[in-house]
């Protein structure tokens, strides 16, 4: 069953990527659809990030600090790798300190 689920995910993912590029030869004119699609990634990603990031760590405080530092570092224009590593580092340090206390 797991392979079936992976196949479904792969087929839907590829369809989403390939269909517009192969079928639509003209730009989308509908303003609502354009706007909707524009906002979707921000809404989905932020819903998935919070509060999940706070619940992912051993201590909720570590996840909360990772969220704050991640937002600041990303805001300052750091690339994907730097933001990801910064979040990890904050959790490492915070949980190490919490452990000592």
């Amino acid at each position, binding site marked *: 069953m*797991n*392979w*079936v689920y*992976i196949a*479904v*995910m*792969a087929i*839907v*993912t*590829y369809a*989403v*990527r*390939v*269909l*517009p*590029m*192969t079928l639509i*030869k003209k730009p*989308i004119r509908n*303003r*609502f659809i*354009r*706007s*909707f*699609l*524009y*906002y*979707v*990634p*921000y*809404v*989905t*990603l*932020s*819903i*998935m*990030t*919070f*509060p999940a*990031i706070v619940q*992912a*760590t051993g201590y909720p405080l*570590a*996840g909360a600090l*990772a*969220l704050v530092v*991640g937002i600041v570092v*990303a*805001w300052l*224009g750091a*690339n*994907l*790798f730097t*933001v*990801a590593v*910064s*979040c*990890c*580092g904050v959790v490492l340090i915070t*949980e190490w300190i919490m452990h000592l206390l």
Partner: protein
Amino acid sequence: MNNSNYSFQNPNNQRAFKMGFRDGIPIGLGYFAVAFSLGVAVKDAGLSWFQGFIASWLCTTSTGEYAVFSLMAAGTTMLEIALVTLIINARYLLMSCAMSQRIDPEMPFWHRFLIAFHLTDELFGITIARPGTLNPYYSYGAFIPAVPGWALGTALGTVVGTILPLWLTSALSVALYGMFLAVFIPPARQNKVVAALIALCFAISYASRHLPLICDLSDGMRIILLTVVLSSAAALLFPRKEEVDAP
């Protein structure tokens, strides 16, 4: 015009291929580190490292894969997987549309099928940032370090993830959320509507875990519901101006 413009014998295409490879290296390294924590989700879903490897190679979508693996860990249906994949990856529709506008009509059509295969946020970013029409060989060059980085990272994370001490797993688990932040925070800096929307999403996402009815939904269905409602509301209240490029 003949097809030699799109032959790999053409030095311009070989140069584009090398540039793509070079630009793909940091992406591959980032993917490798981030995919490690995805491997933990693979393990939780009860999949083998090989299944994680294949899934990552075929899908190369952190958020989509993460959501699907979470669903599989919790127990799910094919319909739910298809819907969640569709909704979470809906942004690729827009990216694919943007890419289609940059394709030279002379380009042999089959290149479209290959370019689309690994249309990730990051690869889209570096590809669309290049001036002029798309060179498919640039994309292929970038795939070579990027995609194996993602797939190998997932496989290794699946195998090693549980061997790692708890403090290290805890730290690595936030890498993926850090990557999400790297995708949606920079546009918030340039667009106040996006910034306010993200803040609202944080609040509603938190509240939805405690609200009656909504908190009973599965994670996947909650994500779909909130995404459709909030994105529609934003599109109605703050429609985008024409010809504004998606970041």
